[in-house]
């Protein structure tokens, strides 16, 4: 189950500068209609994106519906992005919609993990920097594309460059498009050995 590797990506960035964008807002429960990772893009941000609950009439005030942000593949957002429910559908919906990276001051923990194991790069940058980036692109978002360079851990637009940090493992998973289950199954012997000892220590479990 190889993932799309993430190295360098250039794309239109859309500012959704709200704090605490929760996974219910990213994909409302009622939009998760099938036991499937597909078919979720239409429900992405449904409560904000459409004029009526359950409807499909675009609300033109919502950033992703504005022509200048057409084909956005990067989101700029506020702190605690992806908080709330653990639903991985939020990440699958973003993925299918074409989002490759999200830049925010902080992320919901489960959401962050879900991103890295589904080929989406979550980038933590200070709020002031996120706002700065939003300002830098806003005059002409289609021209002022953001460049995200994961190997070098840098986000840039025109002359502006910002470095970000990311842990070694999620970085490697993203860059190489690795499937963590396959990586861990290679360690089955260690797991077996641990399990044996663990059962001796805690036979009641």
């Amino acid at each position: 189950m190889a993932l799309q590797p993430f190295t360098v990506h250039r794309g239109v960035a859309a500012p959704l500068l709200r704090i605490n964008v929760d996974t219910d807002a990213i994909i409302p429960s009622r939009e998760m209609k099938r036991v499937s990772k597909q078919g979720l893009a239409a429900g992405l941000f449904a409560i904000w994106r459409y004029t009526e609950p359950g409807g499909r009439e675009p609300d033109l005030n919502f950033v992703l519906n504005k022509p200048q942000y057409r084909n956005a593949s990067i989101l700029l957002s506020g702190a605690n992005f992806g908080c709330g429910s653990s639903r991985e559908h939020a990440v699958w919906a973003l993925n299918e919609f074409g989002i490759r990276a999200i830049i925010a001051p902080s992320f919901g923990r489960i959401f962050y993990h879900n991103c890295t194991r589904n080929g989406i790069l979550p980038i933590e940058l200070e709020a002031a920097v996120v706002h700065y980036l939003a300002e830098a692109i806003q005059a002409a978002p289609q021209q002022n594309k953001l460049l995200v360079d994961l190997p070098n851990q840098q986000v840039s637009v025109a002359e502006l460059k910002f470095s970000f940090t990311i842990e070694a493992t999620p970085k490697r998973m993203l860059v190489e498009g690795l499937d963590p289950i396959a990586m861990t199954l290679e360690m089955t012997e260690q797991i077996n050995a641990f399990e044996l000892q663990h059962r001796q220590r805690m036979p009641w479990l």
Partner: protein
Amino acid sequence: MAKTLFEKLWQSHLVEQLDGDAALIYIDRILLHERTGSIALKSLAAADRQVRNPDEVFCVIDHIVDTLPGRGDETMMPSGKEFIQTTRSAAQSAGIHLFDIDHPKQGIVHVVSPEQGIVQPGSTLVCPDSHTCSQGALAALAWGIGSSEAEHALATKTLRINKPQSMRINFEGQLGTGVTAKDMILYLIAQYSAAGSAGTVIEFAGEAVRNLSIEGRLTLCNMAVEFSAFTGLIAADKKTIDYLGGRPYAPSGENWKQAVRYWQSLHSDAGAVFDREITIDCAAIEPMITWGNSPEHSCPITGTVPKIDSANKKSASMQRAQDYMGVKPGQKLAGLPIDGAFIGSCTNSRISDLRTAAEILRGRTVAANVRAICVPGSTPVKHQAEAEGLDKIFIQAGFEWRESGCSMCFYAGGESFGFQQRVATTTNRNFESRQGPQTRSHLASPATVAASALAGQLTDPRTTQKS
């Protein structure tokens, strides 16, 4: 060296340190439900992978299933049947435990697990559900994961995770009358914000936590995730051990004695160092109510909707929440008319919650315009309540008495309270449209919700005379 409880749990499950800060952690128990578990089981099978230890995996049907009497696989949520049936067949072919719709142990996953003794002190437990943190109340390292991580845990019995930081929250002093575990956690989040714990493992400690029942502790830990915690934890004590004795999946015989000896060591040692520590004076806590769309938007039921200072960096989100909720700065919360009352969810649907509410409702009726619903957290809770006659009190008061499940804690496209309806609710999330399109949820304790249902408006439970 003095160790924290978290450190003990971590070290006893560390299979191997990986590169960077990641570690491979052994997982003792995996819980699943039909909404997220279905997809984990299905994609595991699609990748031709096996569940490593099926006997240590438990699946419940709780999220999507209807809670009206006579329910079956058909649900009010469109296509809910597909989730239920996919889960059932995937669970059967994987050979895991399944508590199906009509199983006597069925219920909300985080209620079922402690009730059946599936979660045990000193164990690690994961579930693709964010409120798995509830179960840390029994001194287990229990946390919510995504579906892909659930696949990983099912296939390998381990997870790759970065070691979180630790934090202790000391609830000192005693709770006032009418103040509950729910009020403690809402108070904490209001004080320190919804992002206040920043991914740490929180140990809840202090006199007030020791004095809580196990059910109260489950409520407290339930909302650790709303405080952005990795999970919540509470040391094992006599209450923990007494609670687990005789439960179906708890150890017995010689194993029990050995387990208890070990469990007695499951507390933070004197002098153990936490990355952060907070102390709360419980005398300051009153019954709480939320006014907005984040659990941090809460204040005492005696309080008012906050004024918005435009210099506050949260002013835009506060404004948005007040508009959504239809409330104005300076407005009193008590007295706000409600359309609905909901007692249920993994936060507050255990027998003690129902007893507290029933005590307030006994011999009274809910206000004429209020739709009131009680959904027991599990089928055993429902049966226990019926044996005590609580169902009659709820029904006579005008509450609907439901089968167990998540029900209207969240809206999945089926049942809802309705457009812009104002609901006093014992659940844990007051996000926009969480309980239905544009529904306005006010989180509170069972006592506050029961008192509000009677009055038809948000009400301080201390002003409602007990029957």
